[in-house]
């Protein structure tokens, strides 16, 4: 059977599964809609968190980015896993004990202020919309390449599926669909990795194969071979970095702290019954995430080696079929600058003849390695699972921010439960449509805005929540001024370098050599500093708030 038939079969089966689960787990109350009734087991929540977190970016883009960045790609690996340590140790157990529905709930209650709540709502909406646009684009890429439909139709199908289970099932539907999606995506990610690792190094475990010797060149390790190949073409050695140490440090920190501050991840810990379960499910979540995150750098190295060996200095007339297929999507482009009919893929832009979109590496990898057709189709189903599960989690945050935080808690406190549930469904529906619009007409600055979202979460939510738990002295004046300073500083720096003065976006002009991707870390430090100073000169929080802090620090219910 050819790839396309296999893809229709596998994608069809997985979509039917998701819809089946959605029907089985409809939400009947707002509590079920917002936090799945608070009765999800830690293991299921761990899987759901993993699927929620691992988006199209993790599944489709990350290994490709690492493949082109070499050691510098570690910022993503460390940043997107290390954040879970912060989440598990500093946030999840206390927020579970707090026991409401959303992040703006916590910020609004802890800082006894509508202003704080509204700032938090705006941050949650901004971060989530930014993300969701990226997911829909991922869905579009997979559909257009593997099912050869228009990107628009691909996005519409994806929208219809997400609409169905997010609007119907709320958090309950999303949670159980995400469990299924985790299984699909991890299987789809691992199968080709194991195949390729076996082929190249004889070791079935990619994490080990990546540090082993090559099968066809005994005595030469894969990474040494790749360093040699890269240097011969004028690239940096794969295992050495080219970014400055301070920049790598700040980017990693911004991604870590940003991860711990993302509302769609935090809210998953509201769904388990107890504090103990929150700790346990954070452990499961990182365990499940790490399976993919420790395999991704192996795939990156395999793919890079395979890519260079299969196309560098090869005649264009004899390129393999996958090359032509991807050329049709415009994601690979060849320009024969010296008219010799041979592909020169080198670091020097003046003589380089090949441009490859980094996003295609994971999707093209099984084809480059000539794996069976069903494996290639499986990767397509996995990419869709990753994109849809994250999109659903984000849509829920958006709908909750509107129906619960804005409507119920701020504008219309007297609204009935039934009406609130209806509002949540309508908000989720609208959010799907907006996300779909961005998927079909992706703003060309998606990548830039995603970096913004992390920096933003790092510079606003993270300090506000941490101080809310760990400092009894922190008051609303401190927290609000901290969030505003963190936000304005980070936004100003990013907007200046990414939108206003793009030419100046070079290490010589950056403050202390910190790129806009890493500036959220400095924004976070400023937030902490401003909040601490301001809170010293203003009134301490009232007694009931201090009691609330004492309460969330202890798992047991206090009288």
């Amino acid at each position, binding site marked *: 059977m050819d790839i396309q038939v296999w893809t229709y079969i596998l994608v069809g089966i997985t979509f039917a599964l998701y819809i089946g689960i959605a029907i089985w787990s409809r939400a009947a109350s707002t509590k079920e809609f917002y936090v799945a009734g608070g009765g999800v087991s830690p293991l299921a929540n761990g899987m759901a968190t993993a699927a929620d977190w691992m988006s199209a970016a993790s599944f489709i883009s990350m290994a490709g980015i*690492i493949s082109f960045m070499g050691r510098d790609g570690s910022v993503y690996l460390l940043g997107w896993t290390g954040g879970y*340590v912060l989440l598990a140790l500093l946030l999840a157990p206390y927020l579970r004990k707090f026991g409401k529905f959303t992040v703006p709930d916590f910020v609004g209650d802890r800082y006894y202020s509508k202003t704080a709540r509204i700032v938090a709502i705006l941050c949650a909406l901004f971060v989530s919309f930014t993300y969701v646009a990226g997911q829909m684009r991922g869905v579009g890429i997979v559909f257009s390449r593997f099912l050869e439909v228009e990107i628009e139709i691909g996005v519409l199908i994806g929208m219809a599926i997400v609409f169905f289970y997010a609007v119907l099932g709320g958090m309950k539907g999303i949670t159980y669909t995400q469990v299924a999606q985790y299984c699909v995506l991890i299987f789809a990610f691992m199968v080709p990795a194991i195949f390729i690792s076996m082929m190249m190094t004889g070791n079935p475990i990619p994490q080990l194969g990546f540090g082993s010797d090559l099968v066809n060149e005994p005595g030469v390790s894969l*990474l040494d071979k790749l360093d040699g190949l890269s240097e011969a073409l004028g690239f940096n050695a794969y295992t050495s970095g080219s970014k400055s140490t301070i920049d790598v440090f700040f980017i990693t920190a911004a991604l870590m702290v940003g991860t711990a501050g993302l509302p769609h991840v935090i809210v998953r810990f509201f769904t388990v019954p107890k504090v103990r379960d929150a700790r346990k499910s954070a452990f499961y979540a990182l365990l499940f995430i790490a399976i993919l995150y420790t395999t991704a750098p192996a795939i990156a190295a395999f793919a890079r080696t395979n890519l260079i060996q299969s196309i560098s200095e090869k005649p264009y007339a004899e390129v393999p079929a996958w090359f032509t297929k991807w050329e049709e999507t415009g994601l690979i482009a060849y320009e024969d600058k010296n008219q010799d009919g041979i592909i020169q893929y080198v670091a020097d832009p003046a003589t380089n003849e090949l441009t490859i979109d980094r996003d295609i590496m994971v999707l093209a990898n099984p084809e480059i390695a000539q794996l069976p057709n069903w494996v290639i189709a499986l990767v397509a189903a996995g990419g869709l699972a990753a994109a849809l599960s994250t999109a659903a989690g984000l849509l829920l945050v958006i709908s909750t921010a509107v129906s619960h935080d804005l409507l119920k808690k701020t504008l219309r406190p007297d609204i009935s439960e039934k009406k609130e549930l209806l509002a949540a469904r309508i908000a989720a529906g609208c959010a799907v449509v907006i996300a779909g619009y961005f998927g079909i007409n992706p703003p060309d600055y998606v990548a830039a805005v995603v970096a913004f979202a992390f920096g933003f979460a790092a510079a606003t939510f993270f300090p506000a929540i941490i101080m809310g738990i760990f400092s009894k002295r922190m008051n609303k004046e401190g927290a609000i001024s901290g969030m505003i300073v963190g936000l304005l500083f980070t936004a100003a720096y990013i907007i200046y370098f990414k939108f206003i003065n793009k030419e100046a976006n070079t290490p010589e002009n950056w403050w202390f050599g910190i790129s806009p991707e890493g500036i959220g870390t400095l924004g976070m430090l400023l937030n902490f500093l401003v909040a601490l100073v301001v809170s010293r000169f203003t009134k301490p929080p009232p007694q009931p708030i201090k009691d609330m802090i004492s309460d969330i620090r202890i798992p047991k219910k206090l009288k």
Partner: protein
Amino acid sequence: MQNELKPYIYTMSEQEQHRKYWRMNLRYLAILLTVWFMVSYGCGILFVDELDKIPLGGFKLGFWFAQQGAIYVFIVLIFVYMWLMNRLDKRFNVEEE
């Protein structure tokens, strides 16, 4: 440690107990987060070039920490925290019913 704590628990007021519980929690956090910082920012970023001089199978050690090792340690850290806190909850009798 168990013997050192036990006698206090029954003599301390509930509030004092909770304060002590929180202080122990903070101590665990300080230790675990130091390890967290050392493996990721230390081994994987700040000292990566020095560690790269040491081979680990087909890897350079610094590169291995940055792309593999630190992540394994993260998992262990969360597991240890979970285990320590569950024990602490029991010892101070603050478990959720």
